[in-house]
C-alpha cells in the first residue's frame, strides 16, 4: 500500500555504507497501564460496564550512522483493551529514515508531524490521521507514510510533503465508550477519489520566528482526514458509513510570546465538495510565576473555537469557549495540574476536565484524568458521551 515510502527507505538504506564501529543504537520503551472507572453504565447497547483496564506498549529503536548524518527510528505501538476489541490495536507510529545535510534534511517513512499552537484543538494539524480509540483528549495520531523535504533558510523553514497512502480513522467498536448510538462499519468506508486510499496527498508549510512571534503558513491538498458519515443498513442493522472526500486547505498558526502572555491563533480555510468554510481557534495563556513566594506557576487559559459551518460542523468546538488553569509546582517530581471547562455556545453543553500528573521515583509517572459531560441537545455531538463521565488513572513505566 505504501510502496513509495518503503522503496525510498530501502533505497536509502542500501546506498548507505554501514560501518559497524560508527553505528549508534539505542532502545527504549514505555508501558502504560490504564484503569478507567465510569460513573455509570453507558447509554448504548453493550456499554453495560463501569470499569475498564487497558495496557499499551510503545518501544522505540533508534540507529544513527554516517557521523550522525543518517538515522533510522522504529516505533511500533500496541494496545490491549479489556472491553473493546477495536481499541485493542497495533500501529507503526514511526518507521523512518532521516538524512541530514547542513541546511536541508529528507525524512522518509511513517512519521508523525505536529503543527499548531493552541491547546483545545489544532485545526492546522492536518498531516496525520487521529487514532480516535486512544481517547478524546490525548490527540494521539497514526503514523503517516511520507516523503518530507525540509529546507532551512534565513527567512524560515520550508517543509514539502508527498503523502502516499491514506490511513483511516480508528473507530471504537460495539463494546466501546465515547461513541454515538451507531458504530462505524470500517468495511463500508468509501472515498471520493477513484484512487481510494492510494490517493497521493501533498502539503507545504513555511514557518519562522521573528523576535517575539512564531508564525506558520500551510497548504494541503488531498484526502480529508475527517470523514463524513451516513447511516446505512448492513445485515439488518443500522451502521455508520464513513466517506472520505478530497479537500484543499490553507491556514495560519501564530503565537506571540510577550512577558507573561502567550497569544495564540490558528485559522484555516477549507474547500471541500460539501462546504467552503473558515474555522479558527484563538486565545491566550497568562502565567503568574512563583505564586505566593513559592516555586509554583499558575497559568490561566482562555480560547474560543469557531467554525463557519455552525451547528452542522463535524468539529466538536464549532462555537465553544474553553477556560482552563494550569498549575506547575516545579518540584522534584514535576507535579502539574490542569483543570478546564469547555462551554458550547450553540448547544449550551459543558465538558469539565481534570488532568494531574507526577513523577514517581526515576522511572515511573502517574497521571489522573477525569471528565464530566453535560449536554441536553440531541444534535450536540457531546450528547453521546453524557453517560461516559470517567476517572482514569495511568501508570507509565519507562525503560
Amino acid at each position, binding site marked *: 500500500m505504501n510502496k513509495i515510502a518503503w522503496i525510498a527507505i530501502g533505497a536509502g538504506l542500501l546506498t548507505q555504507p554501514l560501518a559497524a564501529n560508527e553505528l549508534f543504537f539505542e532502545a527504549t520503551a514505555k508501558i502504560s497501564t490504564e484503569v478507567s472507572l465510569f460513573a455509570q453504565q453507558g447509554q448504548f447497547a453493550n456499554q453495560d460496564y463501569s470499569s475498564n483496564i487497558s495496557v499499551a506498549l510503545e518501544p522505540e529503536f533508534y540507529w544513527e550512522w554516517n557521523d550522525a548524518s543518517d*538515522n533510522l527510528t522504529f516505533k511500533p505501538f500496541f494496545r490491549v483493551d479489556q472491553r473493546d476489541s477495536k481499541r485493542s490495536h497495533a500501529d507503526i507510529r514511526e518507521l523512518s529514515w532521516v538524512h541530514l545535510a547542513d541546511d536541508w534534511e529528507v525524512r522518509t517513512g511513517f512519521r508523525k508531524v505536529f503543527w499548531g499552537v493552541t491547546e483545545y484543538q489544532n485545526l492546522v494539524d492536518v498531516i496525520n490521521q487521529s487514532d480516535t480509540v486512544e481517547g478524546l483528549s490525548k490527540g494521539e495520531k497514526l503514523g503517516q507514510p511520507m516523503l518530507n523535504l525540509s529546507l532551512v533558510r534565513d527567512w524560515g523553514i520550508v517543509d514539502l510533503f508527498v503523502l502516499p497512502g491514506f490511513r483511516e480513522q480508528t473507530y471504537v467498536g460495539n463494546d466501546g465508550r465515547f461513541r454515538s448510538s451507531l458504530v462505524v462499519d470500517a468495511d463500508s468506508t468509501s472515498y471520493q477519489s477513484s484512487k481510494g486510499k492510494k490517493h497521493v496527498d501533498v502539503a507545504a508549510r513555511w514557518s519562522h*520566528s521573528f523576535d517575539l512571534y*512564531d508564525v506558520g503558513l500551510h497548504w494541503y491538498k488531498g484526502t480529508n482526514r475527517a470523514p463524513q458519515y451516513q447511516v446505512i443498513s448492513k445485515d439488518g442493522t443500522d451502521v455508520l458509513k464513513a466517506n472520505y472526500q478530497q479537500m484543499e486547505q490553507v491556514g495560519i498558526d501564530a503565537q506571540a510570546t510577550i512577558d507573561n502572555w502567550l497569544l495564540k491563533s490558528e485559522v484555516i480555510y477549507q474547500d471541500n465538495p460539501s462546504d467552503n468554510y473558515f474555522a479558527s481557534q484563538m486565545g491566550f495563556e497568562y502565567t503568574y510565576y512563583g505564586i505566593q513566594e513559592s516555586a509554583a506557576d499558575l497559568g490561566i487559559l482562555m480560547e474560543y473555537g469557531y467554525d463557519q459551518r455552525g451547528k452542522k460542523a463535524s468539529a466538536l468546538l464549532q462555537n465553544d469557549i474553553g477556560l482552563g488553569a494550569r498549575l506547575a509546582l516545579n518540584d*522534584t517530581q514535576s507535579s502539574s495540574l490542569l483543570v478546564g471547562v469547555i462551554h458550547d455556545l450553540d448547544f449550551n453543553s459543558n465538558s469539565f476536565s481534570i488532568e494531574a500528573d507526577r513523577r514517581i521515583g526515576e522511572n*515511573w509517572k502517574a497521571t489522573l484524568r477525569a471528565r464530566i459531560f453535560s449536554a441536553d441537545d440531541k444534535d450536540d455531538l457531546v450528547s453521546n458521551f453524557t453517560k461516559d463521565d470517567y476517572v482514569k488513572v495511568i501508570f*507509565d513505566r519507562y525503560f
Partner: protein
Amino acid sequence: MKFKTLTSTLIAASVLTLSANSALAETPEEKGLTISKQVVVRDNGWVDMLASMKMVLRNKQGQESVREIRMKVLEVADDGDKSLSIFDRPRDVKGTAFLSFSHTQGADDQWLYLPALKRVKRIASRNKSGPFMGSEFSFEDLASFEIAKYSYKYIEDQACDLGQCFVVEQYPTDKNSGYTKRVVWIDKAEYRMIKVDFYDRKNSLLKTLTSLDYQQYKGKYWRASTMKMINHQSKKSTDLQWLDYRFGNGLTESDFNKNTLKRAR
C-alpha cells in the same frame, strides 16, 4: 592568529595596568564593574562548546534524584549565547530538548520540544527565577554571565580557597530576577567566580554556590567540574557535575534552529 593573540594580550595587559593605576581614583561601583568585565573578557573567544551535566538533587532528608543533560553552546559576538540542551534523565522527559537564544538586552527566545507529541512550543522566558527541573538552580543561575545584567560594587579583598579574592556585589538589573543581590568571590589570579551568595527579594541569604575543581581548556578557558548549590532556607541542595567539556567543535548557527531542536538526541 598570532597577531590577534598578541593584540588581546596587550589589551588585557593595558586593562590591568589601567585598573591598577586608577585603583585609588575608582569608586567601589567602578571597581566592581572593572573586575566583573575582566571575568567576561577572559572568557571571550571560546566559540563553541559541548558538555554533559549531571545534577544530583537532595531534599532535606537526603533523598536523591538525578538529572542528566547534554548541551551544545555557541558563543555569539555582542549578544547572549545560543544553546541546545537535551534531557536524558529522568526517563519520562528523555528526548525533551530546549533551544535558547539568550540576549544581553530584552527577553531570551526559548523553545521546548516535546518528543511524545512531536510538538515544538515557544515558551515564555519571563520565568528567570523559577527552578530548573526541580533543582536548586534557577534558570538565571544557569544563564551565561553578561555585564548588562547587573550593576556592581566592589566590597573588599579576602583570602579564599584559590588564594586572594575580590568580593563584589552584583545587583540584577532585570526586575524579574529572583534576587536583590549576589555576593561574588572572584580569584585575583584568573578571575574565576569561585563562590556566590544569593540574596532573595527580601534581602535575606537564600543560597550559596561553590564552584570546585577548575580545569583550564584550550590553555585559556577555566571551567568548574563541580558546582554545589545549597539552599539555606529549604535545606535542599543540588550538586552539578560537568563532564566531557569539548571546545572548538565547528558548531555554527545552523546547529541551532527548530529542525535541529526536533531531532536532538
